[in-house]
C-alpha cells in the first residue's frame, strides 16, 4: 500500500555517527571491518603524498633529497609506514577477494562453453597476479 506523504506523519530515525561501531546496541563486526577498509584509503593517500614530495625533492638536489630520506627513518615515520603497509595489504586482500563475487558457482560471468569457470580459479589468478607483481617490483627496487 502506498502512503500519501502529505497526510501521513511518519518518523525517520536518525543514523548514529557511530553506526559502524554499534548497530542498535549490538556490535557488528562486518560494519567495523568495512569501515576499516574504507579507512585504509586515508593511509594510502598519505603515503602517496609523502612519496610524491620525495620525488619533488629530487628537483631540489641530492642533499635535500637525502636529508628528507634520513628523516623518514625516524620512529614516527616507521610506525606510519608499518600501519600503511598493513592497511594496504588488508585493502588489497579484501579487494581481490571480491573478484570471486562475479564468479559464483554455476552462474558466473566467465564461462568456458556453457560451463562456469569455478571461482577458485578467479581467486587464484587474482592473488597470484598480485603476488607476482609484488615480487617483480620488490626485485626491481632492491636490485636496481
Amino acid at each position: 500500500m502506498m502512503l500519501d506523504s502529505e497526510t501521513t506523519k511518519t518518523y525517520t530515525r536518525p543514523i548514529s555517527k557511530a553506526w559502524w561501531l554499534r548497530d542498535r546496541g549490538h556490535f557488528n563486526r562486518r560494519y567495523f571491518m568495512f569501515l576499516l577498509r574504507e579507512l585504509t584509503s586515508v593511509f594510502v593517500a598519505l603515503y602517496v603524498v609523502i612519496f610524491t614530495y620525495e620525488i619533488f625533492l629530487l628537483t631540489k638536489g641530492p642533499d635535500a633529497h637525502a636529508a628528507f630520506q634520513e628523516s623518514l627513518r625516524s620512529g614516527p615515520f616507521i610506525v606510519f609506514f608499518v600501519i600503511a603497509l598493513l592497511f594496504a595489504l588488508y585493502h588489497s586482500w579484501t579487494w581481490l577477494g571480491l573478484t570471486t563475487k562475479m564468479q559464483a558457482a554455476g552462474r558466473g560471468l566467465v564461462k568456458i562453453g556453457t560451463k562456469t569457470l569455478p571461482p577458485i580459479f578467479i581467486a587464484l589468478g587474482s592473488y597470484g597476479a598480485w603476488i607476482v607483481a609484488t615480487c617483480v617490483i620488490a626485485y626491481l627496487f632492491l636490485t636496481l
Partner: protein
Amino acid sequence: MSDLRTIKITVLRYRPEEEDEPTEQTYEVEFRDDWVVLDALNHIKDHIDGTLSFRWSCRMGVCGSCGMMVNGEPKLTCAAMLRDYYPNEMHVEPLVNFPIVRDLVTDMTDFMDKLKAVKPWIIREEEKPVSEGEYLQTPDQLKDYKQFSQCINCMLCYAACPVYGLEHDFVGPAAIALGHRYNLDSRDEGNQQRQHVIASKEGIWECTYVGECSVVCPKHVDPAEAIQQTKVATTTNRLKSLVMPWGNKK
C-alpha cells in the same frame, strides 16, 4: 503446559496521533519451544495489547512482509525462533532505513518506486505471436539467473545496507539484483532500458561493498554478487563499445 517459558520482548512503538517520536514498550510473553518471534507478536496483539501494529501474511518465509529488526539484525520474524534469544530480553523494531508509519510498520514507497524503475519484467523489442509458442530456455540459461529470482522483496537487505541508510538515492540491493536477474534472462531484451537506472551513479557505483545485504538475505539471493557482476558486465560493455562502436549494443 509445563514447557512454557517466559521471555521479555521490548517493542518500539510509534503512534503518530499520540507522540512525536517512538517509545519502547516491554511485554512478557509465555512461549512454547516452537514459537517464532511473529508468534509472540501475534500473541501480544491477541491477548495483551491489541493496539500493536505490524505486517505479516504467510508465516512461512515466502511473502516477505514480516521483516523487522530483531536484536539489531534484520530478520524475517516468521523464521526467528524465540528459543534462540531466550533467556535474554529481546528487542524488536521496525526495519531501519525506512520511515516508520506506526509501531513496526514501515513506509516502503521508496523501495517500490526503485523496484519499478529497474523494470523487473521480461522486455521484448517485439513480441512474437502466441501462435509461435513459448520463448524456450535451456537449463543452463535458467541457472544463470535463477538464484536472483528468489527475492521476496522483504527489504531486509535495505535495512542492512548502511549505504542506503546514508544515501537514500541509492537504488539498493534488491532492486539491482532483480534488474540483474532480468538482464541475465535469455528471453529478455531490456538491458539497455534498465542501464540508465542500474548503471547510474545512484545504482551499482554507489555500492561500496559492505556485503551485509547478502548476509541477511533469507533466500540467499546474494544481492552483493549481483551488484559486483553488474559492475564487471557494465565496464566490459563500455570498453567493448569504445573499441567496437559498430558492435551490437542491445
